[in-house]
């Protein structure tokens, strides 16, 4: 959008990322931790698209948008696809753990502590 500096978008992305990091560190509910990871992925997506938009240039051969503009969007597509697969498997794991141990507290999942 015209009139909005690059830093505005970037700082929103960074803020969301930091909030996600804090959430992963302080929360003990695995589902909320998962949601915080999604938050971080989305803040990265926002940053990708911001740079794609602000790095606007034309490909001299085709006259269309340059590869650098499309690369950001492609990354976002792949992040979304990977996130979708990750959520399906991750929630399946949480359900399986809940079924086995009847608790989902992340601090009690310490079987591999040795």
């Amino acid at each position: 959008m015209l009139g909005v500096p690059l830093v505005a978008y970037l700082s929103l992305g960074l803020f969301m990322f930091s909030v996600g990091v804090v959430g992963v560190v302080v929360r003990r509910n695995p589902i909320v931790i998962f949601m915080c990871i999604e938050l971080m992925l989305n803040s990265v997506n926002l940053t990708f698209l911001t740079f794609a938009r602000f790095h606007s240039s034309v490909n001299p051969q085709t006259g269309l948008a340059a590869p650098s503009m499309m690369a950001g969007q492609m990354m976002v597509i792949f992040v979304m696809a990977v996130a979708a697969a990750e959520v399906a498997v991750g929630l399946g794991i949480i359900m399986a753990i809940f079924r086995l141990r009847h608790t989902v507290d992340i601090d009690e999942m310490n079987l591999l502590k040795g």
Partner: protein
Amino acid sequence: MDVAGIHVTPNLLVFGGIATVAALSAVGVVVFNNAVRSALCLVINFFLLAFLYFTLNCEMLGITQIVVYTGAIMVLFLFVIMLLNLGAPQALNEKWDPKRPIGILLGVMLFGLVSAQVFPGLMSVQATELSPALSTFGSPQALGRTLFSSYVFPFEAVSILLLIGIVGSILLAKRRI
């Protein structure tokens, strides 16, 4: 109109409104003790992010954001939260923990550190008017052309990944196979 050295345009005000609500809802995800409220905050955040993508001329990805994140992933989250709540009403409560202030401090330090390193050099960068050829760079046509030509190998790889994800989640979720 200038406020504290920043040229305030209607666009900036719209962005400010969306960004403020998005940031607040991001905080809400972490703050709320109730997992359903956290999920609801995340839904609001993802929905508003889609609008931010629209402001960046990426209309296709913005709508994909709504379809994938708010429409599918977050519904799955809510489904699982409610399923766990149904099984054990007390399973998802959390108590106070000394980790909390340390974690918050860490987050503030991360924000401060990265912004101090990255932002100063980018302060003056403003969006430029897109030429007609570029203004459709986020359209389904442009996206599809790139995805199925230059990026066809990663695309196929991701499709295999998704297939593995489907098989894996079915294996995990099913009691008997």
